[in-house]
C-alpha cells in the first residue's frame, strides 16, 4: 500500500482510502450506485493485512448502529450507502452526533424521493446539512468532485471527526462514484495501537482504569438544564468549525462578472460551462463549494459584493440556493438551475441558463 498512481472508480477510491488511512472497521449494506465500496473492501481483504474489520450488516439500520457501537470505543469506524439507505440511518446519525462520536459516512446520492432512481442526484442537500435526523445537530459535510478528492477526503474526514468528536459525511453521487480517473494513493497510515487509541480517544468506552471514573457514551439527558448546557457546548463546537474548517475553490473568480456556485458533479459540469463561456468572451467564474457544512457564508457574502449575479447549479429542485441567497443577503440576482430525478445537466444547457437567467 505504498504511493502509487492508479486509474480507479470513485467508490474504489473511498474503499482504498479507508484501508490506507488506518480505518478499524466498515459496516455496510449494498446499494447502487456505491456497492463497489464494499466490493473493493471484500476483494482487498484488509482483515488479512491491516486487521480492519469489514462486515456486511443485515440492513442500513444495523450498519449505522454497528458504527455507533464500534466508534464509541474510539475506533475509526465507517459506513457508506446511497440516499434511501442514508434515510434509514438518520436515527443513528442523530444519536452519533448527540453522543459526539467520530465516524465517517459516505452518501452516493441518487435520484429521489423514495426509492427513486439509481442515477446521480444532489437532492439530499437539505437532509445532509439541515439535520435529517431530529435535534440541533450538524454533520461536517464535505463534497468531493473528483476521484482524487474521494480518496483524499477520507483522510481529511478522520482528522476532522476526531478533532471535533463529530460524525463526518462525505456527500457525493453516482457519477463520481462510477467515474474512473487518475488517483494518487498514499502510504499506509497504520491503525492505532491500543495505547494510541486510548490517547486519541480518552472519552471512549475502552475499559475503566482505576485512575478515573466511568466514560459514558449516551445521547440521553433527562435533566433539561443539563441538556441545554450540553447543546450550548455542541453549538460552540459548530461555531468553531464554521470559523476554521470552511473549504472551497474559486476558479476564474478574480475578474468574473458572474459566477456559478456548485459542488460535486455539478461543479465539474460548471467547469466546462465556464470554459465555454470564456471562449465566448463572457467573464464567468466558478465558486466550487467543498464543505457544505460549514457553509462558506462569509466568502459568498464577499463575492456578492464583487459580481453582478450568481447561478446556483445543483442536481435538485433548488436546495443549496437557499443558503447562497441567505449568505449573499439577496443583494444581487441569484437563480437556481437544476435537473433532477437522475438527469445530469449538459454544460451547454447550464451556460444557456446563465445567459438567460443572470447575464440577460
Amino acid at each position, binding site marked *: 500500500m505504498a504511493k502509487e*498512481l492508479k*486509474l480507479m472508480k470513485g467508490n474504489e477510491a473511498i474503499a482504498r482510502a479507508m484501508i490506507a488511512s488506518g480505518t478499524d472497521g466498515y459496516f455496510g449494506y449494498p446499494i*447502487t*450506485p456505491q456497492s463497489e465500496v464494499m466490493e473493493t473492501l471484500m476483494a482487498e481483504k484488509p482483515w488479512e493485512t491491516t486487521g480492519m474489520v469489514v462486515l456486511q450488516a443485515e440492513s442500513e439500520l444495523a450498519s449505522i448502529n454497528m458504527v455507533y457501537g464500534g466508534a464509541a470505543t474510539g475506533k475509526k469506524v465507517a459506513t457508506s450507502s446511497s440516499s434511501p439507505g442514508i434515510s434509514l440511518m438518520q436515527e443513528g446519525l442523530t444519536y452519533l452526533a448527540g453522543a459526539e462520536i467520530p465516524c465517517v459516512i459516505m452518501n452516493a446520492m441518487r435520484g429521489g424521493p423514495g426509492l427513486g432512481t*439509481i*442515477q446521480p442526484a444532489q437532492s439530499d442537500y437539505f437532509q445532509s446539512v439541515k439535520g435529517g435526523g431530529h435535534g440541533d445537530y450538524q454533520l461536517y459535510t464535505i463534497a468531493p468532485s473528483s476521484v482524487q478528492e474521494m480518496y483524499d477526503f477520507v483522510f481529511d474526514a478522520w482528522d476532522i471527526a476526531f478533532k471535533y468528536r463529530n460524525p463526518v459525511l462525505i456527500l457525493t453521487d*453516482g*457519477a463520481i462514484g*462510477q*467515474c*474512473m*480517473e*487518475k488517483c494518487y494513493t498514499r502510504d499506509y497510515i497504520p491503525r492505532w495501537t491500543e495505547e494510541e487509541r486510548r490517547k486519541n480517544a480518552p472519552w471512549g468506552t475502552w475499559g475503566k482504569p482505576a485512575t478515573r471514573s466511568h466514560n459514558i457514551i449516551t445521547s440521553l439527558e433527562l435533566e433539561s438544564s443539563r441538556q441545554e448546557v450540553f447543546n450550548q457546548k455542541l453549538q460552540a463546537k459548530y461555531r468553531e468549525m464554521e470559523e476554521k474548517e470552511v473549504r472551497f475553490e474559486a476558479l476564474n473568480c478574480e475578474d468574473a462578472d458572474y459566477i456559478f456556485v456548485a459542488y460535486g*458533479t455539478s461543479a*465539474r*459540469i460548471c*467547469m*466546462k460551462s*465556464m*470554459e465555454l463561456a470564456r471562449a465566448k468572451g463572457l467573464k464567468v467564474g466558478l465558486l466550487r463549494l467543498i464543505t457544505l457544512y460549514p457553509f462558506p457564508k462569509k466568502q459568498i457574502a464577499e463575492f456578492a459584493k464583487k459580481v453582478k449575479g450568481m447561478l446556483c447549479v445543483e442536481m435538485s429542485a433548488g436546495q443549496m440556493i437557499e443558503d447562497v441567497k441567505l449568505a449573499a443577503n439577496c443583494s444581487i440576482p441569484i437563480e437556481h438551475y437544476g435537473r433532477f430525478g437522475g438527469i*445530469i445537466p*449538459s*454544460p*451547454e444547457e447550464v451556460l444557456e441558463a446563465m445567459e438567460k437567467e443572470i447575464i440577460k
Partner: protein
Amino acid sequence: MTEELIIAGFGGQGVLSMGKILAYSGVMEDKEVSWMPSYGPEQRGGTSNVTVIISDERICSPIISKYDTAIVLNQQSLDKFESTVKPGGLLIYDPNGITHEPTRKDINIYKIAATEKAQEMGISKVFNMVVLGGFLKLKPIVGSEFIHKGLEKSLPARHHNLIPQNEEAIEIGKGLIEAVHTL
C-alpha cells in the same frame, strides 16, 4: 490536446474495456483522463457506452453531450450518437447489422468491418482491439508503447499472455479502417 470520445455498442462487445485500455494508455503517457460508463439496470445484450476524455489539461466535466469522436458498434448507438458528434468531428462505425447508414455531411465518417474480420480470423475476443486500432490509425492520441503499458495495467496478470494478440488486433484494425465520407 483534448479528445472527448464516446464508445457505444452492445453489452459484451468490450466497449467498457476498450475505453479502459485507452484511458490507462493515456495515464501511462502522463495525460489527464476520465472514464465514465453508462450505468443503470444493465442487462446482457442491452446497450452499453462509455465516455473517455484524454487531455493535456485538467478535465472539466467527465459527463459531456458533444464528442470529438463517436465509435458506434450497433444501429441503436449510431442512431443515438450520430447527432452528438461535434461539426468537423469523427464518426466510426462497424457496418455489421447497420441498416441505416449515417447521413451527416459535416463530419468525417469511417467504417471498420471489425466484427466480420474478427470472426473470419477467429479472434472475436479481441474484436474491440480491432476497432481501437482503426481509431488510433486516424487519431494517434496515445503512442503504441503506451498502449502496451495500458494493456499491462488494465488486464489482470493472468491474461498478460494475451497482450501480443491484442496488439496484433490493433494492427489489423489500422489496416481495416476505410473512409466513407471525409471533409
